[in-house]
């Protein structure tokens, strides 16, 4: 028998999905703003962040109220707990998008640096991981969640490659140090975004199956 407060749970999930979409768009805009030096795009990211923060507060409020009013147990308890964790992770992703957008602002007017690294590919792969992680939670798809976790190392590998590439570039041309460092930080931001998306995948498995997979816990058993 569905209880009346399960409708509120669905509403909360929908709000979280809205927030996830906003975050995904903000990340894409932020990297594009950096690569194309379009100031307008950066400003859009800052506006998006305000909406993301507002949603974070609303979702927290709704979640806390539901804990008090519905007294969830078992899967409902896991669901609500994970919603609040994912809420925080999405807001952190938004912060990383803002960090990238801020870097784009500081480079406006400078000649763009051409680098021997597929930053767009790294961005698209990160965005796919974010999208998949949201999909797996919204659709309670633990198979997709495990696929997301299996790709954990891909963005780490991109980040390592970017770091080495920028280190080499800075050695040979100290004049590009400032711009190169921005690329290094953006790589770090994208790597953190992918880590946060992994958290969402882990939370999905815990929510659906009650299995703890954080920090490769399953492998320690």
């Amino acid at each position, binding site marked *: *028998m569905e*209880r*009346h*407060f399960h409708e509120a749970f669905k509403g909360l999930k929908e709000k979280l999905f809205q927030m996830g979409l906003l975050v995904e768009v903000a990340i894409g805009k932020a990297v594009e703003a950096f690569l194309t030096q379009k100031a307008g795009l950066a400003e859009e990211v800052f506006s998006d962040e305000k909406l993301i923060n507002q949603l974070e507060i609303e979702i927290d409020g709704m979640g*806390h*109220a539901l804990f*008090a*009013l*519905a*007294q969830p147990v078992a899967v409902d308890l896991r669901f609500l707990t994970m919603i609040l964790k994912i809420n925080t992770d999405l807001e952190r992703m938004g912060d990383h998008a803002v960090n990238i957008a801020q870097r784009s602002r500081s480079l406006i007017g400078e000649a763009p640096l051409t680098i021997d690294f597929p930053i767009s590919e790294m961005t698209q792969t990160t965005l796919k991981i974010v999208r998949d992680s949201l999909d797996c939670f919204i659709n309670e798809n633990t198979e997709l969640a495990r696929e997301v976790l299996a790709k954990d190392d891909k963005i780490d590998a991109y980040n390592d490659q970017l770091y080495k590439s920028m280190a080499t570039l800075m050695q040979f041309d100290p004049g590009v140090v400032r711009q190169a460092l921005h690329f290094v930080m953006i790589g770090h931001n994208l790597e953190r975004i992918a880590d946060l998306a992994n958290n969402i995948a882990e939370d999905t498995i815990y929510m659906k199956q009650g299995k703890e997979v954080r920090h490769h816990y399953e492998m320690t058993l």
Partner: protein
Amino acid sequence: MTIFIEPEEDIESEDGMGTYALVSGKTFETKPGSDLLKNTTKILVRGLDMFYGMVRALHGIDIEIKEKAVTALIGPSGCGKSTFLRTLNRMNDTIPGARIEGTVNIDGVNIYGTDVNVAVLRRMVGMVFQKSNPFPKSIFDNVAYGPRLHGICDKAYLENIVEESLKKAALWDEVKERLHTGALQLSGGQQQRLCIARVLAVNPEIILMDEPASALDPLSTAKIEELIHELRKQYTIVIVTHNMQQAARVSDYTAYFYMGSLVEFGETKMIFTNPVKKETEDYITGRFG
């Protein structure tokens, strides 16, 4: 809309249930869209003191019960919740030595006025008790009892009332094939829903519930709670419960009583996430009571 003041003359009504007119010594029909119907406070209580002989059981209660919402009354045993509930349909009148001071207004009319017809009041303000009390009659006759008492004899009309009431009480599907079997053969949860159907059959506007699920198993309790959630779309409901979690689940507003006084009243969401009074917080967190 029904009011419970004696009309100066009998008024024929479309539903056969006695839709009386509003009073101030005169009668007139109330129509949808009238000012009264726009009023979102259904029950207004001001300065209510309640005495059992010399003992004061309620102290200066001021509260506004909202229309078409569920208001839960919580508090420790003996705090006056059920006493207050019974003041809303004058059930305390049946207790020797019981008297009130202050006012209880329903739709702007003081129900303790001298010209109030208490029987009509109790039709408008129905009550469901902790222990279900179906009559030793058939399921059909239980629900039809009230309408028959109000003069409805038409068989088809009665059947319609019974079916509608049982549907509203979420019991129809379970009993439709055996309406003429004994009500006492039903389970505890079904008997309680039958009692709710019995109340609904006389077309109330307010339903008072005194711990309606405390004697029931968890699944029956859940069914009653979902029923309350549905009924609030049409009726004003006031429920006494010892189960704070139930109050949180089913109600829109919560009133915390302690030793005959109203300590705090507010939206349930606020009471259970961020109450104003420390005494309320101590009670709902189990630190007291």
